[in-house]
């Protein structure tokens, strides 16, 4: 008897999105990054293609972050200098992209001005050649101000700008459109809102290949299974030709995984959980691994040790 394998025939594929722009294209990046384009479920090379491997964006903040020491120690004194920090991520840890989070804009914190934020973005742009993802603070109104300034100051760079949400997407979508950037559309673990938001943004005139989905994942042990299933459904939707679910997905792995107690509590506090060093690294890396299995294209990560594990995992799964 011979075995007839079941190979799915999908009617469509995930859209491709290009991030960054080189000097020929009006930007200053040394190279661009293309994500998406998959015509199969993740890493099933026998029935379709994953044209572009998933990429890793490493997180850089404009203020010294309150992360745990096992992560901070790996960045040394660059933490107080976003440009130097970004350069270390790229040169030393092999980040494909830099994810710059402007926490300092928060009106209840540093309350940095839009001009200041734009200046920091420019500094990071000149320190590294990879494309940039820029996200703001927790204040919607302030974010709209700073993103308008940043989008203008970085015209031509094709940044990936965050975050557009269901009740606050218009000004950032407009800024992305006018200054030719790409946009993150974030929905709270809800595939219907996710789809609706993409429709609303697209109706404003931003093309579908300028949108990336952020499904707002949960970390390992804290709701990751919800994100897992929603992303799996979104990916199946894209392959079945649902255009409004066909964007590549970005996952804030570092933020979510490192919020969990298991990634921060010392072995003295919880002897049953083993040493923090490897546990913390794996907490972030396994969160990433699960998201890769359901179609994540961009992983936003923090811990360089976790980044290196995930890179190896991606390489293992991309080798044919």
């Amino acid at each position, binding site marked *: 008897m011979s075995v007839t394998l079941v190979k799915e025939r999908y009617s469509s594929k995930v859209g491709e999105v290009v991030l960054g722009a080189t000097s020929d294209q009006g930007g200053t990046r040394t190279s661009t990054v293309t994500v998406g384009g998959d015509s199969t479920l993740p890493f099933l090379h026998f029935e379709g293609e994953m044209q572009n491997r998933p990429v890793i964006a490493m997180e850089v903040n404009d203020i010294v972050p309150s992360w745990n020491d096992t992560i901070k120690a790996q960045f040394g004194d660059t933490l107080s200098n976003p440009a130097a920090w970004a350069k270390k991520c790229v040169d030393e840890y092999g980040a494909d992209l830099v994810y710059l989070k402007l926490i300092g804009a928060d009106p209840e914190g540093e309350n940095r001005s839009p001009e200041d934020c734009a200046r920091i973005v420019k500094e990071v742009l000149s320190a590294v050649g990879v494309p940039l993802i820029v996200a703001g603070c927790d204040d919607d109104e302030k974010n709209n101000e700073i993103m308008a300034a940043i989008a203008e100051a970085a015209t031509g760079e094709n940044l990936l700008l965050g975050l557009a949400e269901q009740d606050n997407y218009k000004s950032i979508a407009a800024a992305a459109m006018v200054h030719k950037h790409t946009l993150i559309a974030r929905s709270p673990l809800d595939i219907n809102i996710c789809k609706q938001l993409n429709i609303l943004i697209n109706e404003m005139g931003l093309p579908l290949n300028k949108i990336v989905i952020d499904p707002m994942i949960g970390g390992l042990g804290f709701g990751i*299974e919800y994100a*897992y299933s929603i992303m*799996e459904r979104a990916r199946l939707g894209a392959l079945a030709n649902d255009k409004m679910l066909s964007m590549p997905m970005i996952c804030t792995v570092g933020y979510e995984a490192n*919020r969990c107690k298991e990634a921060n509590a010392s072995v003295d506090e919880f002897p*049953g959980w083993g*040493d923090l060093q*490897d*546990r913390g690294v794996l907490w972030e890396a*396994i969160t990433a*691994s699960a998201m890769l299995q359901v179609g994540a294209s961009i992983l936003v990560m923090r811990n360089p040790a976790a980044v290196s594990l995930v890179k190896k995992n991606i390489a293992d799964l991309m080798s044919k």
Partner: protein
Amino acid sequence: MALTGLEIYKQLPKKNCGECGVPTCLAFAMALASGKAALDTCPYVTAAAREALDSAAAPPIKAIKFGNGSVIGDENVLFRHDKTFYHPTTLIIRLSDTLSDEEVGVKLQEINGLEFDRVGLHYSIDGVAVVHESGDAARYAKVAGLVAAGTDKSLLLLSSDPIALKAALVPVASRKPLIGEATADNYEAMVNLAKENSVPIIIKAEGLEALDDLVVKAQALDYKEFVLDPGSRTAVQTLENLTHLRRLSIKKKFRPFGYPVIAYTSNSEPLDEIMEASVYVAKYASVVVLNTSVKSHILPLMTIRQNLYTDPQKPIQVEPILHSVGDVNEDSPLYITTNFSLTYYSVEGEVETSKIPSYILPIDTDGTSVLTAYAAGKFEPEKIAEAMNACGIADKVKHRNVIIPGYVAVISGKLSEVSGWKVVVGPRESSGIVSFSKSIS
């Protein structure tokens, strides 16, 4: 998976003799499909048809039981959102018989210590794989005996030498270990050994074609307690094989592959190995054999396993009774939340971090989160007041302040009216509890 009446009809003799008590074969087929009749009442059905009908009615992947409560296989879907994954991947730690007696003891102690408590759940490692690498049958049997004596976990005995395997198996057969591996060269001796001792056996071949051949041959020995190993040892090939095996058994009811599958990690670095194992846990492996047995490595893997095998339709819940964190006293604050385990433990974790002994009362919302419960009318002031009365909190504290989640601030007026307590609106996110708790103390 149940067959339709028409599919059953094709297998029947079509005599319309009525001896089964039903006037026609087609009507009998309909009765069978709806479970109102048994195939035995038809005297003319052929053995081949009986076999076809029986196997079609059997689950797509056979459930295999071994060791100390390990159940593997018996899955019905490719995606957990279609229904659920039922039997969490069995995780087994590898132990070589080249270790000295003393090293075996150390490793066993480490394996037995792989028990974890987090967010109200208890995880423990499932078993030990004793691997024959010494080339010495007597040594292998000795180590298997040491392991059996040193742990009550499930056992996997791995050797390609039927004589060594028999020596190791017979003394511990009552523990019902999983054994392996039957290959094209040794399958007769191996499968008969498994059959004699009533234990399940791994059927291993290189590639799916060869595996199909070997399973069919092994089934001919009239034994069907199998676990499959398609022989791949790289992550990408194993992922491919796991997917094919699961799809063929479920979508095509391809019987030779209707058994659980075992996967072995290939990365030698322990952290890379855990990453590789996480892929197999997510993608259909029923058993994963690991080298590392370090706590900090196993906990994250067991957590992703627990997460992915959670029934998507039944959220995990905590008991809706008054919980206390720390050494509570009559001044301890009272927090209200829901009994959705994720919600509750997010609150409990933060309250713990605040170092202020506190009471937490999760309201029974059928395991939904704060906003979901509120939207569904399951987090109403009357219900909360009732739960506060029922738990007797009034006798435990001398103050009359109750803290509610910031997202449901809108119920504060009504709750204060029906409960008679002063309602304090807490932060929206549990992450705000630590700084909030300082402001109230």
